[in-house]
């Protein structure tokens, strides 16, 4: 299959307009004859579901949480980017586009990213109209802050809870449509299979997590907005329930998985403290606006940070990247932290660096710092028991976001016709590294302003037809899903799901983490299959399938991660270059920066499932750069 990305031709600035002009429409009266399933109710899913319902479609939305408001977008802290140029500091649509492409190390599509930058401004307008309480100055105008990888202030924020406020905006829009009878939300439901009829996505199989019952839903199209897969590393900043299952099962039904090795390790997280820890907590990148990152100049310096004089501190980000300093992009900052800790300069247990606010508190006063980051300092205190107003925070990188995801074309449609993929679940806009405050932008761009146009074109092309779960494909899907659940219960082994997840996490973090080599990737590929086999022979899943059974939920998600982790390592091995968050130690410059290989790897790697026993097939979508020249990505 040749991957047709459907990207329009012509000047970048006109592409989305021209493309929309050619998309088919459906008249308002006819829209109610169509049903769309939206799986996931985060920023992308909730905004899509609300907008589709406003247009007149019947929408069925699904989330595994007990309320759509709890999707993990809620935890995004720092902000959302837009090219408004309100501060008059030189921003523009082109600059946001360029920063995003460069931030992604030239591994994203020009057309998609330019559209994202164009749409960014409308998102802020929309959210303000919904009542999102963005930070304002006294006169009432919107405030901006800076984020990594940019030299302008284009990030809008609502204290340290921007994701929460944007999600509540989308959730409230969703709630309004529920009230209007246009959307049915199915909470505590987990999608366990995609149903494909005659080559088109026509429904899903979902498990009611309370009763355990498997349910079938039929529709004219299916939208996945199911988030990312950073939990494959076990410890990550994601919610514990975040999973790859919906995307993985869609992959097994024919959707290609693109660039799985592009994972983001976020530099500012609270370091690991013990073996039974269940998650890592992120501290917003916005902290790097005012905090300075340093380590002692002496290895394993036993003194406490306030006893170490200025001259004996190494502000290594400011030293290595004077142009961007502490606001170097995430992949670069994370790698620098890892390198300095590997060299023996780490603090605490050796896996940490200081993030110090002493200067900022002296210059701006404690109250200003409290108003900017108070909730983050409070969170740090609760988790570590340490007061960051008095002594520097300790931070270390942690898995945070997945740039990779299901392959989609310019219309956000996967390789399965009728299956659309939004937000973090797709691979489309961030290349090999995502810039801070761009995930919220992308999720809402996809849901509010892109999908509603492109899905209409698809639906108009297929006609309403009849939506019924009578097709054999629905029965077969339910039967296969039930068998899988029964198999998990039947093992009755002696190890818990959590123990296996920790093992998988160790393999991936040590071998497919911030630094990867052919040797480490081969090791991961050798270690994952036996672990998977052991899982299916020794896992202990208590209880029944027709009950509220959280261990069974976790076991199903881990079973998918045990397969997906192998694809991640395989993709990382295939990509024999360094780019963005994918750092192959064989390919680096003299000063330790990522060395891209545009001659051989200037493509999107899209993997096709061919059965459990057959290796997946690689399809390449070559990236074209017509408007910008690819360059060595420098933040010096």
């Amino acid at each position: 299959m040749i991957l047709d990305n459907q990207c329009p031709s012509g000047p970048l600035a006109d592409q989305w307009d021209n493309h929309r002009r050619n998309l088919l429409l459906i008249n308002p009266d006819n829209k109610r004859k169509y049903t769309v399933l939206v799986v996931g109710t985060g920023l992308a899913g909730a905004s899509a579901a609300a907008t589709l319902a406003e247009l007149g479609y019947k929408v069925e939305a699904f989330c595994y949480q007990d309320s759509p408001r709890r999707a993990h977008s809620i935890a995004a802290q720092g902000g959302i980017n837009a090219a408004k140029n309100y501060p008059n500091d030189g921003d523009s649509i082109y600059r946001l586009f360029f920063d995003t492409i460069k931030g992604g190390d030239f591994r994203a599509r020009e057309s998609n990213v330019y559209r994202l930058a164009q749409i960014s401004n409308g998102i802020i307008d929309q959210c303000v109209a919904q009542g999102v309480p963005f930070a304002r100055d006294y006169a009432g105008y919107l405030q901006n802050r800076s984020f990594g990888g940019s030299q302008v202030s284009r990030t809008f924020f609502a204290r340290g809870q921007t994701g929460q406020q944007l999600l509540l905006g989308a959730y409230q829009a969703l709630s309004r449509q529920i009230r209007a009878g246009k959307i049915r939300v199915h909470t505590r439901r987990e999608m366990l299979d995609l149903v494909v009829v005659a080559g088109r996505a026509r429904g899903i199989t979902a498990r009611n997590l309370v009763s355990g019952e498997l349910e079938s839903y039929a529709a004219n199209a299916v939208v996945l907005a199911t988030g990312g897969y950073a939990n494959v590393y076990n410890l990550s900043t994601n919610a514990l329930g975040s999973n790859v299952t919906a995307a993985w099962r869609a992959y097994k039904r024919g959707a290609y998985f693109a660039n799985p090795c592009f994972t983001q390790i976020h530099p500012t997280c609270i370091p690991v403290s013990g073996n039974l820890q269940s998650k890592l907590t992120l501290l917003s990148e916005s902290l790097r606006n005012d905090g300075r990152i340093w380590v002692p100049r002496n290895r394993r310096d036993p003194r406490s940070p306030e006893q170490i004089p200025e001259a004996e501190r190494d502000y290594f980000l400011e030293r290595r990247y004077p142009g961007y300093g502490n606001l170097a992009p995430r992949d670069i900052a994370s790698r620098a932290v890892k390198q300095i800790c590997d060299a023996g300069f780490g603090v605490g247990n050796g896996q940490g660096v200081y993030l110090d606010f002493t200067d900022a508190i002296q210059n701006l006063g404690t109250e200003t710092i409290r108003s900017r980051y108070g909730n983050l300092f409070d969170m740090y205190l609760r988790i570590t028991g340490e007061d960051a107003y008095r002594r520097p925070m300790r931070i270390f990188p942690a898995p945070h976001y997945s740039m990779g995801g299901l392959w989609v074309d310019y219309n956000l449609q996967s390789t399965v016709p009728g299956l659309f993929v939004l937000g973090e679940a797709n691979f489309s806009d961030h290349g090999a590294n995502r810039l801070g405050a761009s995930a919220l932008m992308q999720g809402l761009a996809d849901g509010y302003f892109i999908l509603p146009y492109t899905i209409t074109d698809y639906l108009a092309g297929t006609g309403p037809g009849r939506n019924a779960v009578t097709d054999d494909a629905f029965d077969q899907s339910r039967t296969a899903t039930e068998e899988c659940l029964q198999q998990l219960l039947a093992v009755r082994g002696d190890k818990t799901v959590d123990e296996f997840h920790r093992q998988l996490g160790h393999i991936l973090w040590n071998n497919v983490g911030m630094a990867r080599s052919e040797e480490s990737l081969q090791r991961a590929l050798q270690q994952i299959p036996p672990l998977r086999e052991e899982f299916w022979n020794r896992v202990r899943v208590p209880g029944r399938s027709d009950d509220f059974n959280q261990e069974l939920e976790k076991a199903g998600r881990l079973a998918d991660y045990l397969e997906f982790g192998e694809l991640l390592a395989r993709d990382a091995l295939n990509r024999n270059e360094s780019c963005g968050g994918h750092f192959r130690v064989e390919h680096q410059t003299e000063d330790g920066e990522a060395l891209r290989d545009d001659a051989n790897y200037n493509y999107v790697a899209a993997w096709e499932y061919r059965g459990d026993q057959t290796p997946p097939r690689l399809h390449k979508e070559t990236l074209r750069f017509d408007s910008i020249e690819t360059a060595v990505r420098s933040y010096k």
Partner: protein
Amino acid sequence: MNLTLHVWRQKGPEDRGRLERYAARNIDPELSFLEMLDQLNGELIREGREPIVFDHDCREGICGACSQVINGEAHGPQAETTVCQLYMRQFQDGDEIYVEPWRARAFPVIKDLVVDRSALDRLIEAGGYISVGTGGVPDANAILVPGEAAETAMDAAECIGCGACVAACPNGSAMLFVAAKIAHLASLPQGRPEASRRVCSMTDAMGREGFGNCSNHYECEAACPKGISVKFIAQLNREYLKTLPKAATSKAP
């Protein structure tokens, strides 16, 4: 540290439920309360017993999923802290700890520590939004919101919808939850046009869903992990009072 837990176990909505006693041994004080339960669940699973079911997700205090009454207090002893952000260093070796679900008429127990909080979603559906569709809105800076109003709106909007206010209230009232949404939207110029309809509709829904009335105990504020102030209840009441003359003079729609 070693602890004795008394945990509410209930197989389903029809089951009567009971407290069961568990020994939690060798607990690292650096663990969170939920990680301590994870550890205990691991032991229960290996012993062939049913693990304790509880709601949780983000484990960083923002999703609002976790919902446990610990030693009689919603979200436990630490002020402005969700259960997931409560760390075992807050407890002493040898402590006895009672763990129960939210208890309120509007929140029926589903299993063990998990309750059905969908009533809160229905309160929002009743009007906790601004009726704007996607597209066709003015430039973001065309709607000026004075810094102070934005701050007030944000103070209220920080609500995570966990339901601790309801669980802590002797009347099982959702007044603080509703007030937070009313105040968030009524403090903004965008939210003013629908303010009176919103407050009537949401307070009506509160009664329908089985929440009790507010009788000014302020337990809600004390339990709220985000420190949402009861002053917003006063603001709700003001918004509500403003609707009364209108209602008296206008015909029913």
